């Protein structure tokens, strides 16, 4: 029997130990999370069992409470697992040792685990420039990857999924390995979040300040969260509300050239 491999991934200040006997899974984790491998005691433990052999688990993503207030069942066509928020443990069975499957489960795990840490996983690109982090939210096609590609003088935190955490009224944005079209992982760095920009393509660069009510309405569709239970959904709502109240929010219309940084600076 292959020996147990334990790898530690640190994302947004939460360290997760991945434990598996499958050498293919271990190889995928090593390669996929290269910039985020860490050492030290883990906050979370995920045990990944042997592949199930290709039987689909569920057509859609299903995350629901199962067997206790802190225990969630997580299923998709290519994986099934449980997440225990109380024990900070998870187990996962994959149909095959695929990096997309492991990555998708990890995104869901972090979306659940971060609630307790007053954090969110957001559909947003994020960049550090002049010491501050800038978050660019929007659905596919809104320009997240374009903004990241045009910002050659900024450090990339993510071009697809960003993580923010709130502590004592301060908001910090973290780099993630959750990459989009840029096919480039973000850097394992963090910076205070100085602005949130809701992206859309336009004929010119323009920034318009948003009040918290409108910003919250525009923020919520960008929150990665699948559970529908009222208590956790309410917790996510309040973190999102605290976020838009703590950080200036703007509508950003932009053309595909770096000039949008100029209007951001002047706003």
């Amino acid at each position, binding site marked *: 029997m292959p020996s147990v491999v334990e790898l530690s991934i640190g994302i947004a200040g939460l360290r997760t130990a991945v434990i598996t006997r499958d050498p293919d899974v271990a190889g995928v984790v090593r390669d996929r999370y290269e910039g985020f491998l860490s050492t030290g005691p883990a906050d979370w433990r995920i045990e990944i069992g042997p592949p199930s052999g290709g039987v689909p688990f569920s057509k859609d993503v299903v995350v629901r409470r199962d067997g206790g207030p802190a225990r969630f069942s997580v299923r998709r066509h290519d994986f099934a697992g449980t997440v225990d928020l109380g024990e900070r443990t998870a187990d996962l069975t994959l149909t095959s040792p695929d990096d997309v499957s492991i990555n998708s489960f990890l995104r869901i795990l972090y979306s659940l685990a971060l609630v307790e840490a007053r954090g969110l996983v957001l559909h947003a690109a994020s960049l550090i420039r002049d010491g501050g982090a800038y978050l660019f939210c929007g659905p596919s096609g809104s320009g997240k990857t374009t903004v990241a590609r045009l910002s050659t003088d900024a450090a990339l935190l993510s071009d697809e999924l960003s993580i923010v955490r709130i502590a004592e009224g301060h908001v910090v944005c973290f780099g993630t390995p959750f990459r989009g079209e840029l096919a480039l992982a973000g850097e394992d760095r963090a910076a205070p979040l100085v602005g949130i920009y809701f992206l859309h393509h336009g004929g010119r660069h323009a920034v318009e300040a948003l*009040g*918290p*009510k409108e910003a*919250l*309405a525009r923020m*919520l569709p960008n929150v990665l969260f699948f559970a*529908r*239970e*009222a208590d956790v*959904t*309410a917790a996510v*709502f*309040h973190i999102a*509300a605290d976020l838009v109240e703590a950080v200036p929010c703007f509508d950003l219309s932009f053309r595909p050239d770096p000039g949008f940084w100029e209007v951001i600076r002047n706003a």
Partner: protein
Amino acid sequence: MPEAYLTQSPRTAWRVYDGEAAVLCPDDSTLNTLNAVGTLIWESADGKTAVSAIVARICEEFDVDPERAERDTMAFIAKLRERGLLTVSETIQQAP
């Protein structure tokens, strides 16, 4: 017409910005944004404030005639009920 009392669904989460509420329905993650009158009704949905008292407050605060205020209030309540955001009872409801 018998008196009625409104109670917010405990499944909702909400905040008020500049006198206007944003109410999340967890079942479909829809955010319902209410105007000032809707927010007054929502904040009064405590299980013990009668709808007639809510209508009277709307007439007073927004300078609306009672007939119109009652008609609009009932239509608004029906909408929020339909969305599962509140319940209507003929008796006072105790806080959960």
